[in-house]
């Protein structure tokens, strides 16, 4: 990976490709969407497996219930919509019909975080980790790039039980390898360093790597950890980082309340207290704008991360 000039590809393309690969091998794979087949890159799936594709229309609550029913007959449904609607609108159907029964449903939330930048707050889910983290049985994954999304989708199909995968709308840098298996709940260290540890997920992993590269020039050597699984969170990696670096920074495209930062805080405070800085959206709604403008406004660029880490480090 060339961090200064990376190849970019949308994570949702990884989803669209992975579900076709899966469906070729496993006839139980079925896909559902709520009038967003194109946005979720399901066009090819729809073409090749018309009998296993269900267009439910703009009815996410119904869709989640139907997925639960399909799972009860041994199918592996992939419920696909914007993160806002699939993790928001149908939250209780997900909790009770799917997770309480521990049905084998995969929930795919695209256009997460601020990535649906022009559409504005109504379409920008910055609360999904917080809202879903409290639900028992549910695994939550936020891959950092196209390759990781593909692998995570394959892994999700191997797991028996509900899995939520959230990713972005936009094309984001490719950071991880195509080969290898995605390991749920096992964080990956992408850069070594012992002055502090940046724990990040999703598209913010790239911004964190860029920040770490710049910080190194100023003599601050940051470890960068890709915490792709939000739940179950990798406690060992967090505790080890706390012991070795003493300072932890989390970076996420999510509210600072209840998300990755919250999950890390829970682990630190109960196991290995360390100084913690949570970087994310500071308890406000998103808004419309060009993607670059919006990310800047909310402080989710590498420049902004560098500044916050600098202040935190020398405080």
């Amino acid at each position, binding site marked *: 990976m060339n961090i200064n000039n990376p190849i970019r590809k949308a994570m949702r393309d990884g989803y669209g490709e992975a579900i076709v690969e899966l469906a070729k091998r496993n006839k139980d794979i079925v896909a559902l969407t*709520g*009038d967003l087949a194109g946005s979720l890159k399901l066009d090819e799936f729809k073409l090749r497996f018309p009998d296993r594709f269900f267009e439910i229309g703009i009815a996410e609550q119904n869709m989640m219930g139907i997925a639960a029913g399909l799972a009860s007959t041994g199918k592996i449904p992939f419920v696909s919509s914007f993160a806002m609607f699939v993790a928001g609108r149908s939250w209780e159907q997900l909790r009770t019909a799917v997770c309480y029964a521990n049905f084998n449903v995969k929930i795919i939330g695209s256009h997460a975080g601020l990535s649906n930048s022009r559409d504005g707050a109504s379409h920008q889910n910055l609360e999904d980790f917080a809202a879903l983290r409290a639900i028992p049985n549910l695994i939550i994954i936020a891959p950092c790039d196209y390759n990781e999304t593909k692998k995570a989708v394959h892994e999700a199909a191997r797991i028996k039980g509900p899995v939520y995968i959230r990713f972005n709308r936009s094309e984001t840098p490719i950071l991880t390898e195509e080969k290898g298996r995605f390991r749920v709940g096992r964080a990956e260290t992408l850069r070594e360093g012992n002055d502090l540890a940046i724990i990040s997920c999703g598209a913010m992993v790239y911004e964190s790597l860029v920040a770490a590269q710049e910080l190194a020039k100023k003599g601050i050597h940051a470890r960068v950890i890709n915490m792709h699984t939000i739940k179950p969170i990798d406690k060992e990696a967090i505790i080890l980082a706390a012991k070795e670096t003493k300072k932890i920074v989390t970076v996420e495209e999510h509210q600072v309340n209840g998300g990755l930062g919250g999950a890390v805080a829970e682990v630190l405070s109960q196991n290995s207290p360390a100084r913690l800085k949570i970087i994310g959206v500071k308890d406000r709604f998103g808004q419309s704008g060009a993607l670059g*403008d919006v990310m800047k406004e909310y402080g989710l660029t590498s420049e902004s991360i560098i500044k916050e880490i600098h202040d935190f480090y020398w405080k």
Partner: protein
Amino acid sequence: MKISEKTIKRLEETARTIRQDVIKMVTQAESGHPGGSLSETDMITALFFNVMRHKPKNPQWEKRDRYVQSKGHSCEALYSAMARCGYFPTSELNTFRQIRSRLQGHPSRADLPMIEASTGSLGQGLSIAIGMALGLRISDIRSRVYCMIGDGELDEGQVWEAAMSAAHYELDNLCAIIDNNGLQIDGWNEEIMNTAPLPDKFRAFGWHVIEIDGHDMSEILGAFHDAERMKDKPTVIIAETMKGKGVKFMENKVEWHGKAPTKEQAVIALRELNG
């Protein structure tokens, strides 16, 4: 009811201006929802420039009629109508979907207080409109509440929960409009999720149903006046419309649901709308 030729002509001219604004806004923002804005424009024009009692210079006037844009994605036509009747300067339309604008990609009451409800997540507007209608009624305010709903949006179960409660509460101060353009995002309504037969469904739910050509200004005005006379029942106007109406290359084309034209395409569209 007799409506003068002059009134009709004037409203048609205004609708034409609004359609031009829609094209300019989405082109400038390089995003947005032209198709559904162009299909609803004639009804929005009739409401804001003829039917509704409201005071753009006093937007919080408590006796105002209220308008809820349930199909929040097509707010371009609404913003244009609001600007053109004086709620805010038309120059502000240029800020649509840009950072720190009051004109969010989907209507935001927190940013633009004269917007009655924050929408964009489909299926929620009619419930909000019902709450307004109930609140006005128990306050003895005789204002009316209008709610614009997409035909694809009717897939949402909440719309039908709301439909049931509007009839249950005999909300004759409520008028819903269905922008029946036949299309949603993935294709034609009848292929994505068939909601037909709409008039029968609404009648069975206890509504007064009016079916019109949603691009015929005198039919539109007639329907709103008819609705106003209805007692003890909510009215739904099922307006047959065309997605992308007024711009030939957008008409009835699903791909123009949520996409901006290029600058060159915009020139062609504006020329056509200039007539």
